[in-house]
């Protein structure tokens, strides 16, 4: 169980365990990891019968991610996490003795395409459950459809709080009993950004974010949290360039002209990589004291050449080194062994979604959709990200994780060090949002 302790800010240095353990980092290797995981998974005790299972055929799950376009690296990372989970589960007796297979489809970052793909997965491939989604805009459009299809959907990345805010709570809320999220939401993530802002010697803040709901919501929540937490902040400039902008220079100039102390940016995917290159050549990081990248690590790790500048702040939804648990360390090491890069949060979120289905199906004794929804509702679970449960609104009570971008020679990668975890449960968020009418989504 996660203890919700909003006043406790746990400052972790990357644990020595990780460093000594990896000073002699004996790569665990995928096989050994799978065997170890298998030993813990008591397989073959399929005491329950009924539900959709029992026919010995595979359990089929459908996943929808961005596999093409400006943010295709997110889908590629999710596929890695899925492959990892599928091999791990199938090499260890499957789900109640049945193999699991996952059909991954491309949303192309488009709501219409995502809806078509999801309908096809349900109606043509007869999947037993769904997971995925990278874009908030897409998730917002998909959630009501999921309710119509009456099949569980585990969102693993798209962050808008409105998909886990019950319909009617706010004009944009589309949360319903079928939609869950196993990763942290924008409301949780940006709470952490405001906590970082509390610590910084910066009063004038600006933003540059994508020109759609996600960019605006990030800025709205940040302002509301700063207000609620009593952060001394003025919000002086904002720029919202269109997705897939090829030249950010005009927008960069506009922010530089306003000369803020700090900037919060939710740019992501190839847009973030493009922006960072152009910002560097414009002298951005010399002029602006602090830049907070709210989607930083998801883009940084899979991209060539680690774009995030050292010393700036970034958030992640999963940290490969924290918590320093056997589950996380062995997942990270085995993943690194397999792919020669640290697992991103998108890989971990997708990996965990497959495991969540395994646990729910085994507990329900089958794949009946309403039984799975009942299982997920309020479920307590543990994975590389740590221990968490699903709140009343189907949002995982995971921490908000922010840290300082630091290059790690040993892993040949940017990491967050030091890294802070801010517990971001329902009470903490609603208190921090103060008088704002924005929903906590948890």
């Amino acid at each position, binding site marked *: 169980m996660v203890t919700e302790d909003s006043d406790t800010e746990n400052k972790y240095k990357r644990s020595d365990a990780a460093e000594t353990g990896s000073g002699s980092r004996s790569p665990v290797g995928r096989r050994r990891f799978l065997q170890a995981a298998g030993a813990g998974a008591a397989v073959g005790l399929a005491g329950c019968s009924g539900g959709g299972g029992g026919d010995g055929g595979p359990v089929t799950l459908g996943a929808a991610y961005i596999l*093409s*376009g*400006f943010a*295709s*690296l997110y889908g590629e990372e999710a596929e890695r996490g899925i492959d990892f989970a599928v091999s791990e589960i199938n090499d260890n007796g499957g789900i109640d003795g049945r193999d699991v297979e996952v059909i991954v489809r491309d949303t192309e970052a488009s709501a219409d395409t995502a809806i078509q793909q999801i309908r096809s997965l349900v109606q043509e491939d007869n999947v037993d459950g769904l997971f995925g989604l990278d874009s908030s805009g897409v998730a917002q459009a998909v959630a009501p459809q999921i309710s119509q299809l009456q099949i569980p959907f585990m969102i693993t990345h798209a962050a808008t709080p409105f998909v886990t805010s019950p319909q009617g709570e706010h004009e944009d809320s589309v949360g319903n009993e079928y939609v869950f999220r196993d990763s942290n939401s924008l409301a949780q993530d940006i709470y952490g950004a405001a906590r970082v802002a509390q610590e910084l010697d910066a009063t004038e803040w600006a933003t540059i974010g994508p*020109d759609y709901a996600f960019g605006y919501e990030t800025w709205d929540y940040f302002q509301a949290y700063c207000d609620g937490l009593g952060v001394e902040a003025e919000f*002086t*400039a*904002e*720029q*919202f*360039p*269109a997705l*897939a*902008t*090829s*030249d950010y*220079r*005009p*927008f960069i*100039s*506009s922010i530089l*002209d*306003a000369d803020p102390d700090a900037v919060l940016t939710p740019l992501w995917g*190839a847009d973030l*990589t*493009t922006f960072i*290159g152009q910002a560097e*050549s*414009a*002298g951005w990081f010399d002029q602006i004291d602090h830049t907070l990248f709210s989607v930083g690590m998801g883009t940084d790790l899979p991209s060539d050449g680690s774009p995030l500048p050292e010393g700036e702040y970034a958030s992640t939804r999963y940290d490969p080194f924290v918590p320093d648990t056997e589950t996380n360390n062995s997942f990270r090491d085995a993943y690194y062994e397999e792919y020669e890069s640290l697992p991103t949060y998108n890989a971990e979120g997708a990996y965990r979604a497959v495991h969540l289905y395994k646990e729910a199906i085994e507990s329900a004794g089958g794949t009946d959709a309403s039984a799975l929804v009942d299982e997920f509702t309020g479920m307590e679970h543990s994975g590389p990200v740590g221990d968490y449960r699903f709140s009343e609104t189907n949002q995982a009570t995971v921490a908000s994780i922010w840290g300082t971008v630091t290059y790690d020679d040993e892993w040949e990668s940017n990491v967050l060090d030091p890294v802070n975890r801010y517990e971001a449960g329902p009470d903490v968020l609603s208190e921090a949002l103060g008088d704002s009418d924005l929903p906590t989504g948890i």
Partner: protein
Amino acid sequence: MSFTPLVPLIGISDVVIGLSLGSRLFLIAVGLSLIFGVLGVLNFAHGGFYMLGAYVTLAVISNVVDNFWIAVVVGALAVGVVGAAIEFSAIRRLYDRVDSDLDQLIVTFGFVLVIHEAVRFIWGSGSYSIDPPDVFNFSVTLGGSTFNAYRLVVIGLAVGVLVALWLFITRTYFGSLVRGTSSDREMAAMLGVDVPRLYTGVFFLGSVLAGLGGALSAPIQATSPALGDQVIIDAFIVVVIGGLGSMGGAFVGAMLIGMMQSLGPQFISAGSIAIPFLAMVVVLLLRPEGLFGGIGE
């Protein structure tokens, strides 16, 4: 669309950035305008040509020879060859059709899709960027604002292309053939001009210009499969504002749109993408033929 509470500060760098954005737009729009002016073909695939120029340049630099200028020339010429091949194999067959306008539109749009998918197939859907050539890769600070020196090179080259094209069209034998043929195709053919070959030549030239635009822009933009679609819309706005078939109009229109793209974010925080469209609407209402439309060149 929300308005920034700040008084916009227009610095020299904003002007330089605007002119460099305008320069790349000019290189694509002038080819589009030339092809339309002479062949009467509105080439939707022109944005794809621009994108292809950027990709070929990147590919040459990373796989063949690490020399930016050679890569630019190869990129521009490769696109010219692709353009000429498209004209020769597909568009040429449509000139004499009754509904040739619609057919040309559909065929060139087909090539938009083909180029887009080919790029995705060959280079994937990620985004690439390169540094400007070393000799120009330094920051210039003027009047308190900073920009990369390479942007000045792009502006200079665009002006150079404008002058060279003008001389070529007005001072050379080939230029007089182009002008004559665009005025009266039948008469030119009767006087012995090899019109089909001339058309392929003009299409080659227009494509080279688009490829050159893409190649020169590779260091100041992200190259991704979305690029072609982005620039073709801007290029159409440029030729509508400047006047179809007018080289000077393409230059003025491109610089206007470039400046709007650069200065727009200084005034509004979102939706600056709509400013060129608004400008086009205003021009169409006040001067439907465009600012330089109807002025023979």
